[in-house]
């Protein structure tokens, strides 16, 4: 090739593996420097928001639960809380606690699957949970059993493990019998010990360090580790009421992805949701076993190091089991699975903490009890910008490696976010373009 002409080399990685769903990543380098990084998430454009229009509000929990196969509870909880806010419904403390128990189950299932099957393999340079199981069969068995326990809680409280059907606006369709929950206790107690063992195992991993400063955003609550309630906290700005979400968070279209990018307070910088953010703002209200574990980890671990996300998830699993035990022991069903309410025109918003981070819903409901308009903002699309930003900063240190190794390292970084790209998503390819000259 003659002087002055550009050389372009394309490298394609067939699949970004071990993430939920699929996604695409394009990296362009010019003369050895990163020119652009674009993460492509192909979101069925607002399909569900359109689908909800005109639907009875009673259908909303069931419909939104189908948006994500891994996080149905996150979508259900956010939707019912938003609609309840629109209708000024106050749920009872019992309903509130049971909903948290449901969320504990989902965190257990989602986090454990990610820890063992998706993320832990990266720390042992193996390509899958299958190979990890050959090295660590007891640990993987432990993980599978922990996930099963999460399933059991969902089955008892949610109505079915495969798809929760018991959640409704105002509460639940039925309350489980006390015995049904108490029967879970031995497994939950086993699960607590197993989650502690998991966290200690994970804490011993050799963590790469990538701890570039980042804005960490999560719900914060003065009295409890946030799931369904709280205000929005950031390590870089004043707290934001959930009611004011749309005054601060803006979604915008980008050419390379149909999933919208989110920014905060007009700031062109990205922000980061998820377990590291939650722990940053709420570690003081973890249940005691999890709090002790957090303190054990000490100052050595950085809540900014993206690769520590697996440890953050492990700590949250401990919290989830501890809180589940507490909830089950305290459970005394009363006669009120659901509070009565009247229909009216109204607007309501809610934000909850899905396993992957803050999720926001807004609904306008009519006095006929239908959804007139909705808005759903999942955590992964909010994190998209941050992933791109992180890759831009992470890549320069890798450029001396072979292209396949660079691609592998990028995948590892992306996996730390546990992106749930199937809440949207389509294809995946990692494309490199090197332009020289």
């Amino acid at each position: 090739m003659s002087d002055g002409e550009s050389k372009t080399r394309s490298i394609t990685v067939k699949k970004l593996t071990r993430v939920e769903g699929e996604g695409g990543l394009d990296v362009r380098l010019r003369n050895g420097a990163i020119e652009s990084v674009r993460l492509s998430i192909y979101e069925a454009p607002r399909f569900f928001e359109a689908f909800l229009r005109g639907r009875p509000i009673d259908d909303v929990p069931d419909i939104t639960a189908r948006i994500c196969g891994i996080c149905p509870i996150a979508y259900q909880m956010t939707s019912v809380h938003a609609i309840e806010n629109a209708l000024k419904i106050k749920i009872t403390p019992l309903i509130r606690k049971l909903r948290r128990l449901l969320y504990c189950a989902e965190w257990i299932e989602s986090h454990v699957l990610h820890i063992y099957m998706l993320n832990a393999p990266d720390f042992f340079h193996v390509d899958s949970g299958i190979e990890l199981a050959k090295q660590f069969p007891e640990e993987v068995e432990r993980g599978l059993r922990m996930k099963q326990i999460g399933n059991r809680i969902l089955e008892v409280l949610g109505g079915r493990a495969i798809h929760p059907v018991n959640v409704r606006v105002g509460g639940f369709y039925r309350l489980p019998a006390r015995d049904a929950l108490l029967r879970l206790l031995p497994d939950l107690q086993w699960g607590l010990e197993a989650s502690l063992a998991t966290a200690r195992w994970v804490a011993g991993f050799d963590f790469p360090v990538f701890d570039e400063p980042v804005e960490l955003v999560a719900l914060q609550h003065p009295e409890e580790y946030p799931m369904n309630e709280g205000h929005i906290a950031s390590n870089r700005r004043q707290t934001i009421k959930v009611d004011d979400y749309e005054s601060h968070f803006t979604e915008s279209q980008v050419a390379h992805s149909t999933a919208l990018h989110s920014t905060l307070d007009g700031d062109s910088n990205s922000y980061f949701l998820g377990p590291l953010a939650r722990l940053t703002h709420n570690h003081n209200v973890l249940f005691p076993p999890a709090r002790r574990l957090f303190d054990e980890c000490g100052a050595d671990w950085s809540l900014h190091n993206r690769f520590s996300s697996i440890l953050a998830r492990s700590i949250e699993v401990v919290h989830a089991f501890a809180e589940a035990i507490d909830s089950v022991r305290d459970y005394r069903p009363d006669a009120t699975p659901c509070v009565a309410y009247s229909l009216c025109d109204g607007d309501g918003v809610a934000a909850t903490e899905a396993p992957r981070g803050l999720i926001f819903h807004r609904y306008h409901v009519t006095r006929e009890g239908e959804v007139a308009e909705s808005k759903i903002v999942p955590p992964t699309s909010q994190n998209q910008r941050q992933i791109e930003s992180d890759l831009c900063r992470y890549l320069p240190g890798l450029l001396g490696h072979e292209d396949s190794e660079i691609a592998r390292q990028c995948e590892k970084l992306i996996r730390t976010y546990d992106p749930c790209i199937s809440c949207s998503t389509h294809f995946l390819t990692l494309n490199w373009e090197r332009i020289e000259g």
Partner: protein
Amino acid sequence: MSSVPSAIVIGIGSDHGDDRVGWIVSDAVEKLCDGAIKCLKVKTPIDLIEWLDAADQVHLVDATAGVESEVRRLRYGCEEQRKLIAKLPPNGTHGFGVHRALELAESLDRRTDHVHLWLVSGSSFRPFTSLSQSACSAIDRCVQLLVDELRIH
């Protein structure tokens, strides 16, 4: 006499279009067998691992596109058929399809040679779509074949 049940049926699927097939077949078989056969439903193949020791025969039912006939039965214990199963698209979450889940089970010294995979032809897997006409027909065929098989054993 073995205390382990002779068979278990596990429907794999989701609420989306023809992906419901596995669940519908599981429900139908349970009804036709009057509860004599344990039938259950999972949404992710990884969840079937805990049931592999539950019976002498494990029948998995899943919908997939590209099946030549309405219903195809493959046995994981047969080397050639296992290769076919390995080629199926990993429709499970996180790319963990049936084959990967069974490979994981083997890594954990679980038995898998007793697993039969009943593939039912599906064409539409989009969210909030109904079952396709062809899937409805295939479901009936699969239920009949599976019940006949269960009654023989």
